[in-house]
């Protein structure tokens, strides 16, 4: 490893109205180093990155690149200086070819026209350095997210070539793709590039990084070499307190008496094949399966987002209507969707308005919840769920992912539901909020609420589920109960008899 400081940021400050997002943060990146940047949601990781790349103007501090003071005006400027960024959502253009994406804005010209042949050749040669032998004249969208991610990296490195910033690059990749990506990162590192790596996956951080910097509440906590720290210390640093042993005692002796809810032959064509499902009071039913297997479809059919076209639902032996979300809510259902941004939050409304929304919709427009009561409710849930920032009048879009998730949970808890559906409640959420939400699930079921939880984190499902339903190819294929619930059993059920485990019905997701 070369030992020369490539990028040095000292005493970086950044304020947002009412919030100090970064306070006197120092960050040093060496050439040929993979430097992981860790912290809870809202710790200031993204803000620091954005200050480095010019997406935000910093309010104080200096940034030195190879010893020279830099002041990037915007991301383009930063790119010219040598700092390239690849975001979690690939921001390339799916409807252009791979080559066009890589060469956009600097296409090779011949006789005043774009030299397509040269463009395809150059980009192909460039990608083959990354072990990617693909036809660059095809549309970008014809390749998987993992390949697109690598194309984005190749483009960023080709354009900037000194510092590469990766903001959660592995969030939507499967394990083979992650392996491929890490191979490339190691190669780039050997070429002397400095790489900043942001991830929520601690095992990946330990696997790939040389140095770890931890931020919390906008302040630098520590920067250490990766081989000098273990995961417990790291989590402690990120959270600022010792993480209690996760409560893994399962309620084996759960009474399987009268079910609260029973669904018979419940299904929706092209979404989820008819299934039978009984849920008892205070029971947590987990749903496991691969992406696109029918997990989310199960939830959306139960909640009336896509009305079921077969079967009946009964609430304590009374047939109930679940044809729309409104009807489901009238039966005291609640649903925290997977896609928080598009299906959950109302971005421009305040935290307070987002919390009371479902309750208000239930009361009808003519009976507004008195402001004093709204404030009392918000105060209660902001405290109970530890929502930060605590100002209920802040627009929800300014909150971090974990806090937005808590607000949506509060929205449903305020309606006092008897059945709550959680679709990937911990996706994209930091370790701290993660543990809190799991604790919340357990305490809700202790209070007698019935829950249906969909998660791709099998450890989590094992921790809180009384029963796990495995979904495969739009079919509920297995049910694992009580003591049999283990990650091994779930994985076996997902993989059993499956010709193509990653089978996805086109157009059904």
């Amino acid at each position, binding site marked *: 490893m070369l030992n020369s400081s490539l990028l040095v940021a000292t005493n970086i400050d950044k304020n947002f109205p009412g919030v100090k*997002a970064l306070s*006197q943060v120092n960050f040093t990146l060496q050439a040929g180093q993979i430097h992981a940047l860790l912290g809870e949601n809202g710790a200031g990781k993204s803000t620091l990155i954005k200050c480095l790349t010019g997406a935000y103007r910093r309010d104080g501090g200096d940034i030195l690149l190879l010893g020279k003071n830099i002041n990037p005006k915007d991301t383009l400027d930063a790119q010219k200086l040598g700092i390239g960024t690849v975001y979690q959502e690939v921001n390339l253009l799916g409807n252009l070819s791979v080559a066009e994406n890589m060469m956009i804005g600097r296409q090779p010209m011949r006789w005043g026209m774009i030299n397509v042949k040269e463009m395809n050749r150059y980009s192909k040669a460039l990608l083959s350095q990354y072990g990617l032998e693909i036809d660059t004249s095809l549309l970008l969208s014809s390749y998987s997210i993992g390949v697109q991610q690598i194309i984005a990296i190749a483009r960023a490195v080709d354009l900037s070539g000194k510092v590469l910033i990766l903001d959660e690059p592995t969030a939507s990749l499967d394990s083979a793709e992650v392996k491929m990506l890490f191979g490339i990162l190691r190669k780039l590192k050997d070429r002397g590039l400095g790489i900043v790596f942001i991830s929520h996956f601690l095992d990946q951080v330990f696997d790939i990084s040389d140095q770890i910097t931890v931020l919390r509440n906008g302040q630098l906590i520590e920067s250490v070499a990766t081989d000098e720290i273990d995961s417990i210390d790291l989590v402690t640093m990120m959270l600022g307190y010792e993480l209690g042993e996760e409560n893994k005692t399962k309620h084996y002796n759960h009474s399987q008496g009268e079910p609260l809810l029973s669904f018979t032959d419940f299904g929706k064509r092209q979404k989820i094949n008819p299934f039978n499902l009984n849920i008892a009071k205070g029971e947590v039913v987990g749903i496991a399966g691969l992406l696109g297997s029918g997990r989310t479809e199960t939830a959306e059919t139960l909640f009336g987002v896509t009305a079921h076209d077969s079967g009946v639902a009964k609430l304590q032996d009374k047939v109930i209507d679940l044809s729309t979300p409104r009807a489901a809510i009238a039966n005291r259902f609640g649903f925290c969707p997977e896609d928080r941004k598009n*299906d959950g939050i109302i971005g421009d409304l305040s935290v307070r308005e987002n919390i009371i929304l479902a309750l208000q919709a239930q009361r009808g427009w003519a009976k*507004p919840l008195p402001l004093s009561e709204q404030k009392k409710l918000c105060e209660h849930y902001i405290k109970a769920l530890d929502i930060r920032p605590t100002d209920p009048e802040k627009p929800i879009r300014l909150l971090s992912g974990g806090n937005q998730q808590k607000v949506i949970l509060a929205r449903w808890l305020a309606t006092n539901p008897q059945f709550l559906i959680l679709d990937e409640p911990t996706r994209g959420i930091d370790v701290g909020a993660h543990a809190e939400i799991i604790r919340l699930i357990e305490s809700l079921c202790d209070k007698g609420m019935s829950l249906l939880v969909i998660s791709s984190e099998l450890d989590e499902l094992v921790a809180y589920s009384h029963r796990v339903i495995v979904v495969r190819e739009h079919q509920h294929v297995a049910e694992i109960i009580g003591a049999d619930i283990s990650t091994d059993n779930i994985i076996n059920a997902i993989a059993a008899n499956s010709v193509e485990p990653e089978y996805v019905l086109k157009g059904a997701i």
Partner: protein
Amino acid sequence: MNSLKRLAPQLITLAVIILLNYLVFPDFFNIKIANGKFYGSLIDVLNRGAPVALLAIGMTLVIATKGIDLSVGAMMAICGAVAASTVDSGGSVYLALSLALLAGVICGAWNGVLVAFLNIQPIISTLILMVAGRGIAQLITKGAILTFTDPGLIFIGSGSVFSIPTPILIWIFAGISVTFIVRKTALGMLIEAIGINQRASSFSGINARVLLIMVYVVSGLCAAMAGTIAAADIRGADANNSGLWLELDAILAVVIGGTSLLGGRFTLIGSLIGAMIIQSINTGILLSGFPPEFNLIIKAAIIVIVLIIQSPALKAHYQTYRDTKKPPEPAPAPSSRTTS
């Protein structure tokens, strides 16, 4: 206090334009009473601005749901024609008003159903009535300008109560009552919610369809009032010209008033101020004695300036300018509040 601060750009713009009016026409603020009624340029602005102000009320709610209503001008023509033909065929003024409002409700409901149930984009849904509406109005007036002499109906356009011209009272009353209704109930918030994120709103149990139909019906009602005033003012229903292009003035009033065309947060008072800004410009150009062929260009130029002043990009520049001028604050104690 807070809302006053939010409306500051609109209020300042209005003040500047009125000041300009005063400069080109020093008698602008003179108000006298004749025939038991206030007269004067300032009263003229308030009076002539009534149709656009009324349209802007409905338009604000529609735009807040991320929609738009292009048919308000045509609905004015229809409702004015309904009112005129009712008194023409011997109906009372009360019947005429009721039928005009009913016509507005029906037109609005038509728009609402197209948007809410058939999921047709609002701009297309309302374009249908914008085009067809004048045809319907012509059928009602049988192709002619339908004049009337009913004093009750004329009163709506040129009468006065306590010396205040009736149109002014109507739009102020409508503005206050709609504001009161949307802000004292949960309507306002629910309308904003569906405008910001309709999918998430229906996931939360909001009945978006009912609300959408409701806002288009309110828009129809406002157009009915505006159309009746316009017809009563000229004592006749002109199917071809009543409310012509006023949908654009109404949209402009909403935008100048500070409500985004992208939907969500809305301000009715802002839209009403916007309507008055537009009318002050119109009146000012007339009073200034410029050759009339300049009118539209001057109006466009003023509106461009108003919109530049309000542009978010300019605001951001001003903010950074002010921040760099400010002396650095002492570093506050580390707070536990965070955002990312």
